[in-house]
């Protein structure tokens, strides 16, 4: 049961939060991520936030891919 989607926290009310994915809102429980703040992104699984997404890490990962892409490009062009 691994499906969890990234959603953004728009409002917090006690142990519940209003979250949003591309303009679609839902009310969920944040008992598993009590440290979350408005504006954070969380992984939503069956109505609960199971983790706060580390946005910096996400950026790092994407940067890594882009570096890989440049490298592969270079190698492709460089090879005779």
């Amino acid at each position, binding site marked *: 049961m*691994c499906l969890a989607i*990234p959603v953004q926290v728009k409002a917090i009310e006690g142990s519940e939060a209003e979250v949003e994915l591309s303009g679609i809102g839902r009310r969920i429980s944040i008992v598993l991520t009590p440290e979350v703040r408005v504006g954070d992104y969380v992984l939503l699984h069956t109505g609960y936030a199971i983790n706060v997404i580390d946005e910096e890490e996400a950026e790092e990962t994407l940067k890594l891919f882009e570096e890989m892409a440049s490298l592969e490009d270079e190698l492709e062009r460089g090879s005779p």
Partner: protein
Amino acid sequence: MKFIDEFRNADLAKAVVSRIHRRSKRHVRLMEFCGGHTVTIMKHGLRQLLPETVEMLSGPGCPVCVTANRDLDKAIALAREPGVIITTFGDMLKVPGSRSSLQRARADGADVRVVYSTLDALEIARENREKAVVFIGIGFETTAPTVAASILKAEEKGIRNYYVLPMHKLCPPVIRALLDSGEVKLDGLICPGHVSAIIGSRPWEFVTTDYGIACVVSGFEPLDILQSVEMLVEQLEKGEPRVEIAYRRGVKPEGNVRAQELMNTVFEPSPADWRGIGIVPGSGLGLRKEYGNFDAELAFDIEPGPTLEHKGCLCGDVLRGVKTPLDCKLFRTACTPEHPIGPCMVSSEGSCASYYHYETV
């Protein structure tokens, strides 16, 4: 969609694929444990993109698929109890047990309701005080904390008619059992991403230290899987297997401590019956004594009847990665999504369902 679309970028994917082709020299066997990973791989045709040196096997990480007939029969028997409302995730509805399924029980008059969340089940319990509302508790460590949270909420709000039929399973013990069986020779393991979001990456260390197998914790978008394959290939080419997290935006080495706490407050390890593998000690979750009054097994006298296995069904072998769905004589003939014989065909994450729906040409 933020954190989704970026990880489906075709140009970046091409680059990772290029790199894998370039770096992969040795023949390696990688297993993706998690059904969610299998679906991503099949849906995006990722196997086609990988070099022949990388062999991919699907593992038993589909909680519906690994639910044994006996446990299913218990759920179905409970559904038939008067005054009981069964609440379940949609995936369980059509799985065939020894004689029936929850869907068939519903057609026969049982009150079986599909819910998206245990929060919905609690609502149903609140609105139907005179009935017993039983939540079918399946799922791995991703889901178990949410079920634990629902029990704690029921306790807090004084909801006495909410029960859980605990059938949760734990991943690390079953991977150990799989590796111990010696049936599957693996070089690398793609570790489940959301299970690890809860338990962290440390519980996978034994796979490397005890079996010398490379491990990468992966996310669920195509770029995530490709990155994980690239990292595994890199580890194996260098001959330096270890546990790495590719899914860094979702997983910390220590996991979600709060979720683990809730899970351990309500549940304790117990033996669990894995389809195709058998009973693996300490691989399941049972309710602790203090929460016994939420345990459906204790509250009801469940008579599931004799357990029958379907002849010819290879789900067990498929789950252990020993056979693929294509090896099963029933695949696409007697066993289809409309008339499934085994759970691997019913569950949206089952290998057989994935192969059936997302076949490559």
